[in-house]
């Protein structure tokens, strides 16, 4: 399946232009209020502007204060820009999705007559008709008919898919196009509440509710801001006391712009400015992988997952069992077994049947023979007999025979009922195959047992490595299968899953999820059928397949448009990356403050307690470890660094920090080195460089 990469570059013209405009629109205090750190910064900018204004009225003109003021405003604008960039990218996605639905007309059924209405007028439970060429007007369930549907508008997958009433492929999505046949659809989501609508709202940020971790982090940021407001605004009192104690007039600079500069540098503007951009781009990353989430909360929960419940078929194995070997009964030639098995499977259109034909051809060059009625009567598989095969009419070369392949138990009954014997060796083979996780199919001709076909589940390539990665990250995988425990255990061992649930029923799935949750674990699962719905709803992260039923899609909190169950692993990675990005930038932001103190504190108290014979500077200049040029250049450099670092980190916020599947301890160590230690060191270098630039440009 192709995962379409929709405009992977994060910079493009229109988005950039719109983001620039939005940066100013977002100066609206009501918009800023939602982000307390930036709100405080904006107040700082306003107050500082006031100082400039008052100065101007009195005919003063301080380039220093004007520059500080400008950079305070830039800090706010840069943060707005980051958010606008993230939203812009989301909106671009939403626009392409929305284009699919613009002005769709629906053919609504009223009794026996049809009427033409615009899609938004459709109500829950309305029945609509769609024929080849029609756009499906809304999310719904096929109640009648079968059709092939082009879902490329939302999935990017060009091959049409089959949608039919009943069964697990009954759900259709608004905005997709019917390309053959006729179906009647029952509308299951009102206009504005469809999956697409919810997702568009989510990426546009309109319906974006803060996730639990975002709220908690927000509280921490507010608290840190409060600490710094206290530290900064108690400082003038200590400074004035010191001034008096030193007997020096004007030895300290605690003017309002300088205090505001210090405050804005200290409060966590970096993470405060990028927080919403991180959240939006997390959802955006999910959409790029063709997964729709109903809430940001679900994305975040994906990072916390402890247990993955994975369906064996389609996720762990290729989906079908394949014939891998013929094991003849004692005294029977291999060719005879292969030939009979092929003959019995000629009309068997199941993948297993086809794989038997192919294996016989590959191994012994036995070609598929053209046989048809009245020569042969094919007996299809039935759940009662658990056998299938062929009855051959008597011909010149051989008498009438009947070949059967099927479950060993049933073949045994069949043979013994005809007075034949079921060889012990065959029984042993059957058991051995089962133990290896294969499925044995016994083959009998008349009352003679010919041997056994070994059907094997083929585990997907590379899946074992992915499970190993998950294990390293502390996530357990549980394979869900309808197979018997013996088979399940063998496949589980081959695929490298941690646990399995054999002969699973929907109830057992649900019970297993509850059990894991009761032990404090968070569970994710994928599902498609209606009977998966309760389990999907119970799971902390439930990913429904787009090909699944509407019930399943409603029950889960994500829909995978590609219907690729393996995607769950990627979803977990995206959730983790989202949380890691937040944590890394918070740590970085806080660690930055140390350098800013070393820039600003000596600058504020440069002349305090200056000794008569030691020049104009006081002892606190010892803290000027960066050797910044002058008090003004020092303060300005810190403010400029603080503003520019937001811009510099926008790409990181949008892309997310680098993510590797490693144990938590190692991830922590790496991120601490990069963002903790880096956060301590980088500003020392950055502020020094900016100071050099300021001096070179004669700005201070």
């Amino acid at each position, binding site marked *: 399946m192709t995962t379409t990469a929709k405009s992977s570059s994060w910079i493009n013209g229109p988005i950039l232009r719109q983001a620039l405009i939005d940066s100013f629109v977002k100066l609206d205090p009501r918009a800023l209020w939602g982000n307390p750190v930036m709100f405080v910064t904006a107040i700082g900018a306003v107050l500082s502007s006031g100082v400039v204004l008052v100065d101007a009225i009195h005919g003063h003109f301080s380039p220093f204060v004007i520059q500080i003021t400008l950079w305070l405003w830039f800090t706010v604008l840069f943060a707005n820009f980051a958010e606008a960039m993230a939203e812009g990218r989301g909106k671009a996605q939403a626009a392409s999705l929305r284009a699919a639905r613009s002005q769709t007309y629906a053919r609504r059924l009223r009794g026996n007559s049809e009427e033409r209405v615009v899609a938004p007028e459709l109500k829950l439970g309305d029945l609509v008709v769609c024929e080849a060429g029609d756009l499906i007007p809304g999310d719904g369930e096929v109640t009648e008919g079968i059709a092939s549907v082009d879902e490329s508008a939302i999935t990017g997958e060009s091959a049409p898919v089959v949608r039919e009433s009943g069964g697990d492929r009954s759900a259709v999505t608004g905005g997709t196009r019917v390309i053959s046949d006729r179906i009647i659809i029952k509308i299951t989501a009102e206009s504005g509440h469809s999956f697409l609508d919810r997702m568009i709202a989510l990426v546009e940020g309109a319906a974006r509710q803060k996730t639990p971790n975002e709220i908690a982090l927000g509280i921490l940021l507010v608290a840190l801001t409060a600490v710094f407001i206290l*530290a900064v605004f*108690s400082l003038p009192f200590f400074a004035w006391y010191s001034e008096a104690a030193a007997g020096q007039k004007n030895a300290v600079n605690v003017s309002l712009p300088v205090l505001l500069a210090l405050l804005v540098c200290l409060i966590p503007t970096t993470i405060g400015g990028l927080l919403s951009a991180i959240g939006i781009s997390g959802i955006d990353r999910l959409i790029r992988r063709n997964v729709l989430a109903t809430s940001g909360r679900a994305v975040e929960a994906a990072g916390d997952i402890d247990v993955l419940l994975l369906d064996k078929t389609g996720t762990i194995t290729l989906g079908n069992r394949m014939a891998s070997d013929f094991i003849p009964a004692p005294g029977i030639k291999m060719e005879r077994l292969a030939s009979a098995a092929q003959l019995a499977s000629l009309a068997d259109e199941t993948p297993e049947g086809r794989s038997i034909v192919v294996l016989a051809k590959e191994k012994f060059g036995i070609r598929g023979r053209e046989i048809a009625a009245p020569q042969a009567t094919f007996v299809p598989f039935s759940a009662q007999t658990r056998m299938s095969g062929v009855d051959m009419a008597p011909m010149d070369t051989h008498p009438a025979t009947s070949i059967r392949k099927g479950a060993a138990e049933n073949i045994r009954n069949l043979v013994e009922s005809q007075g034949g014997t079921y060889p012990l060796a065959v029984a042993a083979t059957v058991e051995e195959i089962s133990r290896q996780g294969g499925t044995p199919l016994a083959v009998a001709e008349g009352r003679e047992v010919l041997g056994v076909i070994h059907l094997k589940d083929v585990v997907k390539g590379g899946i074992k490595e992915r499970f190993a990665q998950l294990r390293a990250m502390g996530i357990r995988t549980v394979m869900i299968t309808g197979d018997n425990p013996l088979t399940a255990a063998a496949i589980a061992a081959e695929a490298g899953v941690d646990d399995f649930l054999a002969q699973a029923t929907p109830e057992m799935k649900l019970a297993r999820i509850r059990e894991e949750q009761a032990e404090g*674990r968070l569970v994710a699962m994928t599902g498609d059928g209606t009977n998966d719905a309760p389990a999907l709803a119970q799971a902390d992260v439930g990913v429904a397949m787009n090909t699944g039923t509407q019930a399943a899609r409603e029950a889960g909190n994500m829909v995978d448009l590609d219907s690729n169950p393996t995607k769950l692993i990627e979803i977990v990675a995206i959730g983790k990356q989202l949380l890691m990005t937040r*944590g890394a930038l918070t740590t970085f932001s806080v660690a930055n403050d140390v350098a800013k103190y070393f820039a600003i504190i000596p600058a504020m108290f440069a002349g305090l307690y200056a000794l008569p014979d030691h020049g104009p500077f006081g002892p606190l200049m010892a803290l000027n470890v960066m050797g910044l040029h002058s008090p003004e250049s020092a303060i300005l450099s810190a403010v400029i660094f603080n503003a520019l670092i937001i811009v510099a980190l926008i790409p990181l916020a949008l892309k997310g920090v680098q993510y590797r599947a490693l144990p*938590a301890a190692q991830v922590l160590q790496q991120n601490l080195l990069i963002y903790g230690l880096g956060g301590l060191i980088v500003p020392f270098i950055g502020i020094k460089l900016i100071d050099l630039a300021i001096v070179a440009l004669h700005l201070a």
Partner: protein
Amino acid sequence: MGRCSGLDFAHAISILEAFVSSGEIFQVVFFLGLVITLTPLLGGWMAKVFQGERQLLTPVLGWLEKLVYRLSRTNPTEEMTWRQYAGAVLAFNLLGFLALLGLQTGQAWLPLNPAGQSNVDLSLAVNTAMSFVTNTNWQAYSGENTMSYLTQMLGLGVQNFFSAATGIVVLLALIRGLTRRSAETIGNFWADLVRSTVYILLPLCFVLALVLVWQGVVQTFSAYPSATTLEGAQQVIPLGPAASQIAIKQLGTNGGGFFGVNSAHPFENPTPLSNFLEMLAILLIPTAIVYSYGVLVGNRRQGWSIYAAMFAIFLGGIALSFYAEYQFNPAQGGQNLLEGKEMRFGVANSVLWADVTTMTSNGSVNSMHDSLSPLAGGVALFNLLLGECVFGGIGTGLYTMLLFVIITVFLAGLMVGRTPEYLGKKIEAFEVKMAMIAVIAPSACVLILSAIACATDAGKAALTNAGPHGLSEILYAFASMSNNNGSAFGGLNAASPLYLWLGTLAMLVGRFAVIIPVIAIAGSLAAKKITPKSAGTFPTDGPLFVILLIGVVLIISVLTFFPALSLGPIVEHYLVQAGRTF
């Protein structure tokens, strides 16, 4: 911009040599070694007491525990929700406050007052009552000429026990919050209080008091005798039931002295042995309880990890203090700073005592911290500003450190890509909010109240030192009260109304704005599930976490107080280096 030279490596080596050759380093090493050795011994036994298990003292004192339950009609197995538990803590402390207030303001009419002390003024009485109820033991008075024996014993002495036990009790609530799963309740306040007092505080105090009496600490109800000095002058010698009170003052990390000069008084701290034992007593329970914590949460490594973080900060502070005290001192012509040191015990024991008492929320003094070198005084001040989380008060130190653990786990925990967890409990908005309130409240008190003192004439009038040292005195006073330490820098007239009332406020906020959030966190955590540990779990034991925790504790304190400290001890240090004094 000009720069002064900072720390010089070769210079530091020479200081170390001087320190080693003086032999004092061995005292320090022996002392710390003994503390570490006793930790698991006492800690393991305390864990049994906290869980209500049968232990060594059950046969001896079990009757007393049962008697208290019967008299107070308490059912020790009755569980409380966090609101009930917090309510019980507040009610119990309010009662203690009122009783202590009554004893002071009416002591002239009450018995056991041989020295004829008059009733205590209301502002001082309120300040003192708050001080002893909150385990601060800030003293704006001298015991020997203010308090009657009855007030000392029934009021201050009793609160020494109860305020210490309150600290333990709050910690136990938090531990239950961490260990219970999906629970509504966090234990029984009264049972915790009785067990901590009967089995831990009382017996330890009994033993220590006897040893102290042997060493020469007074314990008597007789009146102050008069003596004629060699010069023929009359001298009144204050006495009293001191030994019993000093035992709990040290063991309960209270620190309020029986006499005005506290542990520098020969009747409180007569010999080098008493000095050593009292220092040991101060650290005994705060260190052991960290081990108990490891036992109670079912993972000793968790306890030792926190212990390691505390010990590292503790050692760092001691090292910096000794560096400051032993380095070349231009203002004193290169001599050690001997002024204000307790010469009976020497420089090392004075400085060690200063660090031990400011790290733990003990606050007793055997030398005058005002006279420490700027940097050593700064370390003492910074110890207070850390929020008393480095061993700290008994119970209080560990629960404060656990608040920092919560913040650390939250800050760094996100970096491993999971909702932060501690011991399997998810740390979410409520816990972060409460932890931040508890961490900020005392800091806010220090900064705001110090600013008020700096801005008012009344605030500045109380100072005896000019220059940056005056600012240090103000900061120290409010840091001590807001963090419920009680240590006095000296040099500040604490009895002025401004400091009495602002101080009362600081002690109130510093105690209960921490306790209530801690119990609330306990309640919230108890209700949560415990996520089993996996490779994806943020590790909260081991060296990486220890370093991280130290980093967060230091960085939060440094970021909050660096501007203020730069104008106090930091600038003073550079000035003294340049030979300038005020």
